[in-house]
């Protein structure tokens, strides 16, 4: 699974992108965030507050209950500030 991070999520985690292989129990974005948060304090801190997180799976905005699996591109980022 390809992870992408933007804005302060990227800054707090420390990398802009990485390939991860979560266990089979991880079936949706919520589960993925829980699993990532267990990797280190930096992940836990960056992903602590879901109200301030937005997610896209395969470049489509979605909710935290969206399914994810191997081969997906999952991006985590703060609320967008375009314009």
């Amino acid at each position: 699974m390809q992870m992408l991070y933007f804005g302060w999520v990227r800054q707090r985690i420390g990398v802009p992108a990485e390939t991860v292989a979560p266990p089979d129990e991880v079936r949706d974005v919520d589960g993925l965030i829980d699993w990532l948060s267990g990797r280190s304090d930096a992940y836990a801190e960056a992903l602590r507050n879901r109200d301030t997180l937005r997610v896209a799976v395969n470049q489509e905005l979605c909710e935290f209950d969206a399914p994810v699996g191997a081969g997906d591109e999952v991006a985590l980022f703060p609320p967008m500030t375009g314009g």
Partner: protein
Amino acid sequence: MIRVQEGDFDVGAELERLSAEAHGSGAISCFVGLVRDFSGGESVSAMTLEHYPGMTERQLGKIEAEARERWPLDAVLIVHRYGRLEPGDRIVLVATASAHRKAAIDACSFLIDWLKTKAPFWKLEETPEGDRWVDADPQDTAAEERWTAPEVERGHG
């Protein structure tokens, strides 16, 4: 048409091109967003825009398609920059062409309101206190939501 680029754009040249493309349109409306030299009471010396290549173009394409659904537009142009910009620099250009002014103006306003909350950009400001990420503005969300109300006017001008 959608363009995401690091370099500057020439507003006059862009509008000339749009005008040629929308031959016969009676109206072109245009919005240019600039980098401010202040934010939340602090001076801002520069701003770096980060974006999500690929998704940015997709989201802007969807926003354009939504505008074309709602108003009779002959041409649409969105140019959005990324990278490090300084106060006074142009960030974004939105231009719409239509037979009548109201459709052009309303669609332009709609597009810039939607860009604020739906285009995957993030802004890092440089201030005397250090760098800080720009938070999403609740007013921008309110501005975007007014276009989702069912009574949105779709008339001609």
